[in-house]
């Protein structure tokens, strides 16, 4: 008997969805025939808002583009302005910025640990990883004064120097996380049920991965060694030793392994930074923010975020406001086009699982 095709609306209010978005699913039985993503629930018009704010005022708003990992936004904007202005960034500031970016990556992955296993029904994991993420947030709070939105990186360097004894605290948290990683493995990655759920699910067509413009862990899960940090090193990444792990499974499992291994790499990067951190200035002051003008020109800058290449195209017409800032977020590709492809033929129960593995982040998709 041929089953009837039914339409299901997943979201915008649904515990399995990664944010405020909706997926319209055509299913026959448990199998998805067609998926259609609906976005627009979180659109705030950032790119337009930036055009009516002056350069300094843009910094507090860009970090709102991606909630779990706001720092690559700040880094992108800061670096774009620095390139346009030809502004030097003191070396210490560069190290601090890398540390912040890596800490943000760790926080983001910890949230992913929770989301990925939570969507597989493994509810202990979020209790652990989200709780552990709080220790990183505590670090951020101490460094920047804010838990979630840091507004710490800005053109010319960073806003404040490291507080006293901060390096020790960071290293302590790194040791702790490293220890915890074993427990995560036990609970999640070595768990047969999780493996069963993840392997062979959400397989990306390796041939098309590049055409579709996939980046970050999903691409590395397909065996492509693509990472902005080594392809086009920014800040002081070229002075640091780290590996870019790849897997070849193209499935949720491969992506999970990539993230798991990158987690270790980030810890190692942070340790190296703490060792190499030079003294000196942390900020190369920008002109009076009330009438700060950035020379005309345009620039595309990219940063490797936890979800992949995060790009900003910044155009200045020489006035005190950006002419245009275009944000190229990785989640846009992953969460809309790729998700629609991957959901075709997938099991209904895997929708949220696959979404999590792609790092879908609706606030960033819609800006």
């Amino acid at each position, binding site marked *: 008997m041929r089953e009837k095709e039914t339409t299901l609306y997943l979201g*915008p209010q649904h515990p399995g969805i990664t944010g*405020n978005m909706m997926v319209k699913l055509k299913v026959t039985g448990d199998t998805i025939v067609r998926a259609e993503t609906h976005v627009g*629930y979180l659109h*705030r018009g950032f790119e337009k808002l930036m055009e009516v704010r002056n350069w300094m005022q843009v910094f507090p708003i860009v970090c709102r583009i991606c*909630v779990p990992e706001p720092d690559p936004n700040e880094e992108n904007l800061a670096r774009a302005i620095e390139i346009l202005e030809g502004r030097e960034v003191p070396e210490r500031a560069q190290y601090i910025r890398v540390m912040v970016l890596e800490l943000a990556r760790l926080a983001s992955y910890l949230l992913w640990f929770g989301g990925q296993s939570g969507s597989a029904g493994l509810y202990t994991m979020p209790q652990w990883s*989200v709780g552990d993420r709080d220790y990183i947030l505590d670090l951020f709070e101490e460094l920047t004064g804010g838990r979630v939105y840091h507004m710490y990186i800005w053109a010319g360097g960073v806003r404040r120097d490291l507080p006293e004894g901060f390096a020790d605290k960071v290293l302590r948290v790194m040791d702790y996380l490293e220890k915890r990683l074993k427990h995560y493995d036990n609970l999640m990655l070595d768990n047969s049920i999780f493996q069963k759920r993840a392997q062979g699910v959400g397989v990306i067509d390796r041939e098309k991965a590049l055409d579709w413009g996939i980046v970050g862990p999903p691409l590395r899960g397909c065996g492509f060694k693509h990472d902005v940090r080594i392809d086009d090193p920014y800040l002081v990444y070229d002075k640091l030793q780290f590996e870019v792990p790849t897997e070849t499974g193209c499935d949720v499992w491969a992506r999970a392994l990539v993230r798991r291994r990158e987690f270790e790499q980030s810890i190692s990067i942070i340790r190296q930074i703490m060792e190499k951190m030079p003294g000196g200035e942390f900020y190369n002051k920008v002109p009076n923010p009330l009438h700060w003008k950035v020379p005309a020109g345009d620039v595309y800058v990219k940063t490797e975020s936890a979800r992949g290449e995060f790009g900003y195209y910044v155009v200045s017409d020489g006035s005190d406001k950006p002419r245009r800032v275009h944000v190229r977020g990785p989640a846009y590709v992953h969460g809309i086009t790729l998700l629609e492809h991957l959901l075709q033929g997938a099991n209904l129960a895997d929708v949220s699982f696959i979404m999590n593995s792609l790092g879908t982040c609706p606030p960033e998709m819609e800006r």
Partner: protein
Amino acid sequence: MEINDKDTLTIVEHIKNFARRHSLFVLAYGTGCGAIEIPPTMTSRYDAERFGIVGRATPRQADVLLITGYLSVKTLKRVIRTYEQMQDPKYVIGFGSCTINGGMYWDSYNTIKVLDQYMPVDVYINGCMPRPESVISGFIKLQQLIKAGKADGWKKYQENLDWYRANQKKVIKNWNMPDYNW
């Protein structure tokens, strides 16, 4: 337990309020960026379940609607729908600056600014983001209001439905939703 105001609050209602305030079932609708502080609040570090605050999946089971931040017009429509699906008594917590006066999206073309014009808000929480501590304080405040019988936003909504409806329709252009007649 002391009951002072016998005219407005019967003993039965008092017992009801006691029960209500100790089991606040929350609809975690991640409307805006505020959703990011909900997981820490709910999980081991801050553990909101200590107060009987538990997340629920559907509006039908929930008492509290957490509006975590800005609402785009498109979301507003869903939120109204969700709110109206919830059973009385129901409470709304406005979370962060955006729900109070537009927050940093005060000049955005796609968000609503003052949530109270579209649905009654019982408690506002200060912050952008509010910390988990603030979220918990918000719930405690709500509990106090329930105890005092003052968390009556849902009654206000019924009584002033026309006003709310008119405001809602002002921003939502394609009103394809049922008009209730309570």
